[in-house]
């Protein structure tokens, strides 16, 4: 629970907000859903609201989609559906959590916190997204580098995420959950560059594993230069080696087996043009 002494800040510039969060115990407030989860006592002293920073946008500039960190899951899903672009991302965010929560969960908060159940990371990693941050280590980075390095733990403000549209890309994402509105156990996303039904390049990522996310390089290797057939799908699935943390619902082994099933289904659906 948050202390009743908490201090609120309402900056109007990114620079001002970035400066404020350099102080100990002062964090950003986007949608606020994560902040309301139990926190270590006294860990949060101040909240910097990002509502006036002008970061709640989703726009296409040329072939690049710019998603401001203040945009909500609903904003992004709606944009993707309306414009019929980045369908994989739109589908993933459009089915995350529930309608009222999608209206609050922001892109920035979800990227910074990277929960195990994130519906956001797998599609963005497969789509080779980049991220722009401010703070002591300001810059533009690949999302993969951001999530895997110490950048994610640094004191920073995420300005936006960028995804470039690519030709000949066939994508899909699948989430494994018990009931629709529950947090997914894992998400698996694939972006395949295909010409004449041959896979030229592949980027396949899974989130929810012990290391938070993993690129399925051996599976990618197994399908590269080949057409997607039942045989290549089986071969690629056989290459996958994953480590999950067990929880009260599923053992690590069960999750791994389910991940293989979902991987196969995903490739089948991409092959059949369903996703």
């Amino acid at each position, binding site marked *: 629970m948050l*202390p009743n002494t908490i201090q609120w800040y309402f900056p109007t510039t990114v620079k001002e907000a970035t400066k404020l969060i350099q102080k100990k115990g002062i964090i950003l*407030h986007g949608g606020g859903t994560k902040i309301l989860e139990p926190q270590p006592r006294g860990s949060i002293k101040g909240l910097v609201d990002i509502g006036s920073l002008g970061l709640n946008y989703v726009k296409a500039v040329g072939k690049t989609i710019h998603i401001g960190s203040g945009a909500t899951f609903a904003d992004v899903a709606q944009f993707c559906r309306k414009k019929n672009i980045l369908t994989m991302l739109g589908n993933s965010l459009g089915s995350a959590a*529930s309608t*009222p929560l999608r209206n609050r969960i922001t892109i920035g908060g979800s990227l910074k916190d990277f929960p195990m159940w994130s519906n956001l990371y797998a599609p963005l990693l497969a789509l080779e997204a980049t991220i722009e941050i401010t703070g002591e280590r300001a810059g533009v980075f690949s999302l993969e580098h951001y999530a895997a390095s110490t950048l994610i733990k640094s004191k920073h403000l995420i300005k936006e995420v960028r995804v470039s549209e690519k030709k000949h890309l066939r994508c899909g994402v699948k989430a494994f959950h018990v009931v629709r509105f529950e947090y997914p156990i894992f998400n698996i996303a694939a972006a395949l560059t295909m010409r004449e039904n041959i896979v030229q390049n592949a980027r396949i990522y899974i989130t929810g594993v012990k290391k938070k996310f993993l690129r399925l390089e051996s599976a990618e290797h197994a399908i590269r230069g080949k057409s997607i057939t039942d045989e290549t799908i089986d071969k690629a699935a056989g290459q996958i080696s994953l480590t999950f943390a067990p929880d009260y619902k599923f053992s690590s082994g069960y999750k791994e087996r389910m991940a293989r099933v979902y991987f196969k289904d995903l490739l089948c659906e991409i092959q059949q043009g369903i996703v």
Partner: protein
Amino acid sequence: MKIPFSINSAVYELELQPHETLLTVLRNHGFTEVKSGCEEGECGACLVLLDEKPVNSCQVLAMSVRNKHVRTVKGIGTLYVPHVIQKAFAQRGADQCGFCSPGMVIATFSLLREHPNPTREQIAEALDGNLCRCTGYVKIIEAVEHAAAELRNTKL
């Protein structure tokens, strides 16, 4: 501290603590039509429209609502002047204990403004954040369809 809030088209100066949720502040000031259920963003009993978008008020810190408009179910229709959606819920037996009804009505209102002729899939998606432990949802979905038919060609 006292903060101005715009609720159901009227402005109120409400006393609040900086850590309080919108749900707590609303209920502390008499807006008890906003129900307190799970307080975890799962059940939808506390749904309100924030700048006309449905949100779980238990998941919103009240301080962040400055300069935004809040609409509770009473901002849609009241006991004496019910909205078509509320009438449809009553006529179709879509409420039993009634605890989830304010949230259901808010979610339906938001859905029908965007999709006046919703499919069953769109109804299910719009109500995916609302739990009902009495009806089994069949009557609720029928009520939404009934309200949609009544409201067709009428601006919400």
